Structures are given as C-alpha cells and as structure tokens.
C-alpha cells in the first residue's frame, strides 16, 4: 500500500507542481493518475522512489515513510518504467533486464538466465536478448523496460507514460500485455498517462488531475464516466464526446450499439 499524505512540491523558481495531494493506493491494484502535460503526474510518481523529495507532506509504503529508507535500496525494491525506456544504450537487452539483480549481487549468469525468461513473459523473442537497445523498435524497447522493472520481482511498479511514445497499434498491444501480466502478478501499480482511454482501460481506480497536481476526481472508470464531478472532468474524459454516448437500435433482429453520431460501435451480447 502506498499513501500520499498532503504531498506538496514546489520546484525552485516555479509555481507549485503538486499541492496538498493525498491518496491511498491499495496493494495489488492499479491506480492511474491521468492529467494533461504539466499537471504534476511525474512529480507525484517520483516522490514514491525518492527521485523527488516533497517540499512538504510525506509518502508511505506499507506504513513506512520513504524518507526512512535508503534511496538506493528503495529504488531497487520498486520497478520503474519510463516513457523513453531509459535503457542503458551500451548494455545488451539481457544485461539491461538483469540490471537490478546484478546490482543486488546475483551472479551474472543466473541473472541473465532469469532475464531471458522475462523476455518471453513480456512477449519478446529471446533472440533479441543479445542486441543493444538501439537496435530495437520503440515498442520492443518498452517491453524490455517492463521486463527490467519486473526483474527483481518488486511489489510496486511505477509506470510513467510507458506507452506514450509508441504507435497506436503497438500501444494497444502493450496495454493488453500489461493487463495480462497484472492478472497473474497482482502488483501494486501506479500508472501515469495523459490518455483517458488508457486510464480507463488499465485503472482499477483513476485519479483525474488538474493543473498543479490537484485532484479533480477519483473513482472507478465507471464512476468517473457516469458522474463527472464537474465541467473540467466532463470535458477531460470526453463524457460529452459523440463516441461516448451510446444508443441501442435493432437491425435485422440484432441489438446494435451506435454512438451519438450514428456510427455503429458494437453488437450487444445476447
């Protein structure tokens, strides 16, 4: 369980990036922070692994203030996936995945064997293990990033717009892959995105942020979509968008769902 207690962060010479943010992320659940660029999502995420120290307030993991923890040990105990992979360009894919286990003193050979198995778990051919990150496509690099985050089997995964830089088809595949992995891993995931559809797809719970890291609304995707707290949220999640407003019509004896502009989007299951 991760608890944010009145976290405020003001960067030097800046207005406040995050102000008085409180949230409980229950264990084994996926909580998605969604907001437009600059709304303080990355800042919040990085307070968990002490890459950012809050100006005031605190962050607790399983009731322990992260400030009590050694930052290096803390970071090794948390999986972190970044938008641009953040892989080491000079190490092979296998060595990248094995980074944390090797830093923790696991023998290299053993760590590489485990890394090779992880490659398969994230849907990559073990052959890519010997390559360098620069030789992979963007989507492959993000998969490697996920594998690296999982290598030390952490309880917590922090994901900062991990699929933001890949093309839509690949993004969809990666999202499905993450759902599949999470279904049998049950990690505690804090996922950051600016994409509402991604947030609704992945989040058990979604937190909509407005400028300055202020919570506009939190709840399950259904709660937020069904009852947006205010105009900002309604607008942000596109509750009024034509494709969100579904109607049912009968065509040839089958029940079809169409959106507000009359475009068929699916067939109602019998």
């Amino acid at each position, binding site marked *: 369980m991760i608890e944010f207690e009145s976290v405020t962060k003001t960067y030097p010479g800046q207005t406040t990036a995050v102000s008085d943010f409180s949230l409980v992320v229950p264990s084994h659940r996926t909580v998605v922070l969604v907001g437009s660029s600059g709304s303080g999502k990355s800042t919040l995420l990085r307070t968990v692994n002490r890459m950012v120290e809050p100006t005031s307030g605190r962050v607790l993991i399983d009731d322990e203030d992260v400030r009590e923890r050694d930052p290096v040990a803390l970071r*090794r105990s948390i999986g972190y996936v970044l938008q641009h992979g*953040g*892989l080491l*360009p*000079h190490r092979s894919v296998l060595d990248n995945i094995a*980074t944390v286990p090797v830093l923790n003193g696991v023998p290299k050979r053993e760590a590489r064997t485990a890394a090779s198995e992880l490659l398969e778990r994230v849907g990559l*051919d073990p*052959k890519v293990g010997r390559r360098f990150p620069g*030789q992979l496509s963007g989507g*492959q690099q993000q998969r490697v990033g996920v594998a690296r985050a999982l290598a030390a089997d952490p309880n917590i995964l922090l994901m900062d717009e991990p699929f933001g830089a890949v093309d839509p088809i690949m993004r969809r595949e990666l999202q499905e892959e993450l759902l599949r992995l999470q279904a049998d891993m049950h990690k505690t995931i804090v996922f950051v995105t600016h994409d509402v559809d991604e947030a609704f797809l992945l989040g058990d719970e979604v937190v909509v942020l407005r400028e300055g890291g202020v919570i506009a609304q939190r709840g399950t995707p259904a709660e937020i979509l069904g009852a947006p707290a205010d105009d900002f949220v309604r607008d942000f999640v596109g509750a009024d968008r034509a494709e969100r407003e579904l109607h049912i019509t009968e065509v040839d004896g089958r029940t079809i769902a169409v959106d507000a502009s009359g475009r068929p989007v699916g067939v109602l299951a019998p």
Partner: protein
Amino acid sequence: MKWLSLNWPQVVELTRDHLLLSAPAILLSVLLAVPIGRLAQQRPRLGGPLLGAASLLYAIPALPLLIIIPVIFGIPLRSPATMIIALTVYGLALLVRTAADAFGSVDPRVREAAVAVGHSPRSVFWRVDLPLAVPVLLAGVRVVAVSTVSLVTIGALIGVPSLGTLLTDGFQRGIPAEVATGVIATMLLALFFDAVLVAAGRILTPWTVSRRERLLPQEETT
C-alpha cells in the same frame, strides 16, 4: 638505407626507450584526466577555472618545464621519470577538457534513469558514465597519444634517450639518413599507438558499431 642497415640495433633500442617513455605518460594522463574531467563536469563552478588552468599547462615551454620538474619532485634531470612527468603535464593539458566533454556527452536522461532504477553514485560512474564517455574520451586519447610520441623527442635535448636522439645526433654529425630514420620511426610509432587505440575502441564500444548495423531484418514482437 646503408646507415640504417649498420645501426638498426641502436634504432630498435631507441624505439623501445621511446615506447617506455610515451606509454606510461599516456596512461598517467588518462588516469589523471578522467577524475579531474569528471569533477569539472559535475561542479561547473569549480570546473571552469580547473579547465582553464589545465589548458594553460600546455603553454609552459618545454625546456623550463624539464628543468623545474626535477626540482619539484627531487629527481635527477636526466631521468626517464622527469620526461614522463613532463609528458603527463602536456597530456593532461590536452585531455582534461576532453574528459569533461566526454562526461558531458552522456545523455542526462540515461543517467537519471540509471539512478531511478537503483544505481548507487558509484555504480552510475563505473557502469554508466564511464563506458558512455569512452567514445569522446578515446578521440581525445588518440590526440594525446600522437602528441606524446612526438614530444618524447625533446628529451634528447636533456640527454634522455629516445628516437629523438637520432635527430640531435644526426643534426650534429650531419647524417641526413639518421635524421630521416628518427622522423620516420617516430611517426610509425605514433601510427602504431593510434592503431592500438582504434582497436581498443572497437572492443570497448560494441554498441556504437551495432548501431551502424541496425538495419538488420527486424522481427517485431512474437
């Protein structure tokens, strides 16, 4: 040619002397320039003056430097140590700025990601900064190597034997073949060092080679 065929054992010996003066100086320059350059890159306020001072070392004329070093270090003037220290001073002058640039060339996002996944400051240096600085660093070391091999000849002026001895001796006794041998052997030695460094670079930076070969048929995800 005739001169060389009569004197080649001396040429071989002087080449060895030359090698034993230049190699340690190059190595010392690298070993000292890397930490100084890293410090300069990490602490810009200290780094500015440090880099300026290092560059200024190159402006010290060779002969006074060769005379002052024995005084400072308490070693004999006509010793290989004097020569090696002087060469290291010039090597540092050339290399410290490049070393700072080399660390500056490391993508800060890569460094930050490395910290974020749990590298300690020490492992960031050894596993991330240093290997990624190698390409730029190596370019600087190649310059230092060639410059050092050529500077070693100055040692002949204070009587430290090297291929430079062929130059002074050849001039004094008016033997053009001896001078030519000295010049050519020095240049060949410089080329040899350069070739070794290029080969070392290939081995140390396999990822830069494979980036050039990245357009292999790429299988997408399975």
